[in-house]
């Protein structure tokens, strides 16, 4: 059985995309929320194996949500899903990625990069996913 995943993404089409892809590779999507505070509550309720965390969201952003989740659940695996790709110069989002990693996220990946997502999931769940 693949990992149980909570998707945190404020844009519905993107959330659906991530949902479809992760399911296709064998993950089980147990929840989808649209902002950081919902993510914190959902984690408490659902205890997912993995949280895919968007950064720029209304209300509580991905950095604050990561901090909150990790500080209360040291075993949490929060994977940052950024819109930045290799060669991008998004200074502000770069900074947020850095802060999220400092806050305890286990990694960061471009949400549009299938290869990248696959590699991260392979790394984090080498036995649970047959990739």
């Amino acid at each position, binding site marked *: 059985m693949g990992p149980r995943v909570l998707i945190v993404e404020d*844009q519905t*089409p*993107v959330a659906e*995309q991530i949902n*479809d*892809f992760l399911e*296709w590779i064998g993950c089980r999507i147990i929840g989808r929320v649209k902002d950081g505070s919902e993510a914190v509550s959902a984690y408490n309720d659902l205890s997912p194996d993995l949280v895919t965390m968007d950064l720029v969201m209304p209300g509580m952003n991905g950095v604050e949500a990561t901090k909150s989740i990790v500080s209360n659940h040291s075993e949490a695996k929060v994977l940052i899903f*950024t*819109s930045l*790709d*290799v*060669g991008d*110069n*998004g200074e502000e989002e*770069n900074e947020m*990625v*850095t802060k999220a*990693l*400092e806050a305890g996220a286990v*990694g*960061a*990946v*471009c949400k*549009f*990069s*299938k*290869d*990248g997502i696959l*590699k*991260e999931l392979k*790394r984090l769940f080498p036995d649970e996913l047959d990739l």
Partner: protein
Amino acid sequence: MYMVFDDLETTDQELISDILPSPYIGLMDELDEMIAVIDSDMRIVRTNLAFLRTLEAATDKLAGKDVWLVLCPDQGKELTASIMNRMRISRSTRAEIQLGGGGPGSRIIDLDIKQVRSNGSIDGWILTGKDLTDRGQIVRELEEVRDDLSTLFEGVNECVLQVRDGKIIDWNRTASTRLSFPGTEMMGLGLSSILTSYKNEGINGKPNSFGDIPDGIYRCLTRDGRDFPAEVHAVTSSKGSGYVFIRDVTSQIKKETRMKLLAEVVETTDDAIIVTDGELVITSVNRGLEAMFGEERKDLVGKTLGDVGFLISTSRTLDELSGKISRGETWSGYVKVKVPSDEEREVSMMAWPIMSATDHGIATIIHLRDITDRLSMERNLELMSSLLSHDVKNFDRAITDNLEMLKMGIYGELDDRKSRVVDRILGQSRELNALLKNARSILQSWEGEVKLEPLDLRSMIHWAADMVSSSYSARRLEIEIDLKDGPVLVMADMLLKDVFQNLIDNSMKNSVDDTVISIKGEAIGPEGYRLYIKDNGKGIPVEMSERLFDRFTSTGGTGSGLGLYLVKRLIERYGGSIELDKREDACFRIDLVRSKKEYELVLNTIEPREQRSLGDLKIIRYTRYGEVFFKVGSWTYGQKEIGSLSKTELVERFGWNLACAIKKATSDIHIDGTFRYDLDGRQFRIVES
């Protein structure tokens, strides 16, 4: 006095005394001239006090003595005989004698001798003497002064002419040279031969009238037919003689003309200019300021900057400005101003102090330019750039992503027809992606100042190639790089990768099978680097070569036509150039500016964090501050323990342009020490700390 003596008639010596009653005798003693009454034997009857003073004698010593023995004891008998003869013959005789024999202290006396006759015979003479010694001294001194003046005039840079009755009688060396009159050719020339007014008239219509030269600017004519503007000043005596000073003012007039032109430019520019004195009190403003703020200059002169109504400034700004100006420094900044419509505008302001030779501020020039519209445009550009960089890009990526997922079969297998449609849409989507990317880059190239830094050329090329090849998964891209005289650092910014991305992408589009690109480079001079970029594609049609870099000129593929336009724009932004190499088909020749400085890489000592390790490092940029940034190639964390590599291995593995993390998330490299790039030897050396 002479008339009294001329009218005198008497009979004998006593009468001479008698006819000089006491008042006249007293009067004689009042006179400065020497007076002696001598008898028919030329013996002294009486003298006045001046006579005695001059001879330093007492009265009783002279009476009855031969006047010539008294006056000229040492002078020759011929002189006295000649005078005596003339005295007997003429009623009035003049003679000049030297009292004291010509030695030091001798005095020159001019004698005027009048006969006194009665009944046809000479009764005696009245002898009057004027001491010319001092006058002679004055004349000699004047002559010495004149000689000194001549010497002085010889040394001055002005032309000096000595003139008498309107004619030149002498001149200094400068005059001879400047007016091109060799030798004595100027002698006797009238002034009008040399000076004329600018209306080609003679000097006040009287060419030779020396007394009619008012001070002013004249046209000075030289012998060889040239002329120059001259400032003329005449110093005249009452007898039509004197000196004329002529100063060549050509360079002064040129300077004044330039100043007038400059003043005209300052007055007519649209920018506002304020001139203040050393205390920042306004002394003048230009038309631009009047127009910008609707204020008349007469209402502004005399006010300080703090008092003018249009300047919305804090006292801190004015204090800062005042402080810098008083230290002789330039001040620049942005201030808010109020214009006649009561609107607030943003204005860039610069103030330059003008200092005296003693470092004292004597004036300040303040320049103001309304930049409100420019700032507004920049903000709009920033907004557009931000939209393109983030929002539009995200939507674009989402479209591509969904299509890729469709193609992957996530939503079920596609038949051939549907698969072809998806491929077509994916192709269009990639084009859109490339177009948006180029549009973003163009906007970025318009924004703000150009800040260039040294970038490793090889790294940039590899990076661009990786980006492009990842979009063409079914085709192979091979890049052969041969960069001589390396390592090569060129002055550019991060958009340099877009240059190579566009060129490589063009090559991919214009070739059918696998693409092979050859990039060769060599140094040109100490500051340039030349690249030749050639691919194995079909080449560029000759008719396109002239318009190749124009906007919306496609090279025959499916591109939007912005790629090469962007490439040229960026390369020129870096001070370089790009053109088609005339010697070879489909070969671009790019010249870039090489970085000159020797840089010292300082890698921070950073504590390793958790056992995270990093994937391959891709070189991003190298800054002038000695910091090099890198970024993980795909944000993927592999199993390599970068921290365990030694400094030397790290350098050997990643090249001289070593990556150093300053963002803590990627600061897993545990390195300390200093790495120095030796520009001369083009070696990267490790200097052990």
